[in-house]
């Protein structure tokens, strides 16, 4: 059992816990087998992660644009410098650092600038 991101949720998976919307409303009960209709409901309510039976925890979304490894590495160096005072062990900071790296990489590949 583990939390997985909405993107990784597929029909046929089983919910290990209730899906509760932030206002407190229960959208789906534990034990529900996910169908396409359920995916639609979760998407409309903006649910980003759910508890499932037998899922691998901490799957990151794979839909990010690929950048070449050099740009990505350089971008990560810049992002690491920006985050030098942040607690890089914190899950939110880890996620922001990752997003920051991708943003910088996107900007750099768009402008074609590869100078460090």
């Amino acid at each position, binding site marked *: 059992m583990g939390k997985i991101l909405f993107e990784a949720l597929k029909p046929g998976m089983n919910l290990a816990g209730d899906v509760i919307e932030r206002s407190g409303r229960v959208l789906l009960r534990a034990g529900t087998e996910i169908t396409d209709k359920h995916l639609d409901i979760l998407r409309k309510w903006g649910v980003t992660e759910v508890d499932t039976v037998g899922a691998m925890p901490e799957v990151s979304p794979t839909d990010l644009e690929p950048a070449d490894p050099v740009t990505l590495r350089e971008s990560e160096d810049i992002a690491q410098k920006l985050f030098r*005072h942040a*607690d890089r062990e914190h899950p939110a900071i880890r996620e922001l650092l990752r997003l920051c790296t991708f943003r910088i990489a996107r900007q750099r590949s768009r402008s074609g600038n590869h100078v460090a």
Partner: protein
Amino acid sequence: MSLETHDLVKSAGSISSLPTIFIRINDAVNNPRSSLADIGRVISEDPGLTARLLRIVNSAFYSFPSKIDTISRAVTIVGTQQLRDLALATSVMKVFKGIPEDLINMEAFWCHSIGCGITARVLASHRREANLERHFVTGMLHDIGRLLLFMNLPKQSRAALMRCQRSEELLYKVEREEIGFDHATVGSALLQAWNLPASLEEVVAFHHAPQKALRYPIETAIVHVADIITHTMELGSSGERLVPHLNSEAWEKVGLPASLLPATLGQVEKQFHDATQMILQDNKS
């Protein structure tokens, strides 16, 4: 250097009071006897403000299905307090003029402020908060103390900025050493002098130390996190170049999962360009 923040605010001259139009709107909103039409009439007296507010309520910020073409309709649909908060956010910009360009680029400063305001608003919407504009305005004003420092203590501010460039320290910490207090303290003293609500004052005062906010912990936590996200996205700059320290309790208080961050950044990105365009448009003169 032992200059008191309150003296700093008092000596600030024209800055020590808000534009009269805002004060009149605020009075009208707070007066239980005034009707929606009264409030609309006060706003309509200022054509520039009217145009700006109509642009905002017709933007992607709200995405209403039909066009809102009069202030009286905006008052009914958006709400009086919300419109007052938007009026505050935009009229504050007029107050600060003549800050040396080598200290801060004003457009970059307001971009950072607007970015933080939008992010605070998006975070609040994920929490299903009722009045979103409240969070927009606190985000928009969080670094306002820095402008006062740049204007009235340019020498010390320059020293702080230069030290940060060399040492890669965080600016708000260096301010405390070079000036004796930081921009958050100055900002909240300024908001107090302007007679703005205590909630604004507290959020601004503690946006780098959210654990000290006892009366408005959630609001403060939201702006604290919004500021960090704005730095992550490198939207504008208020002088600080590095991502500030995240208080993990504040993150818990905001109560959103880290997996919501990609979507949050996406939403901010979508609104940011539009919002800066419409807010900065007629402020350039």
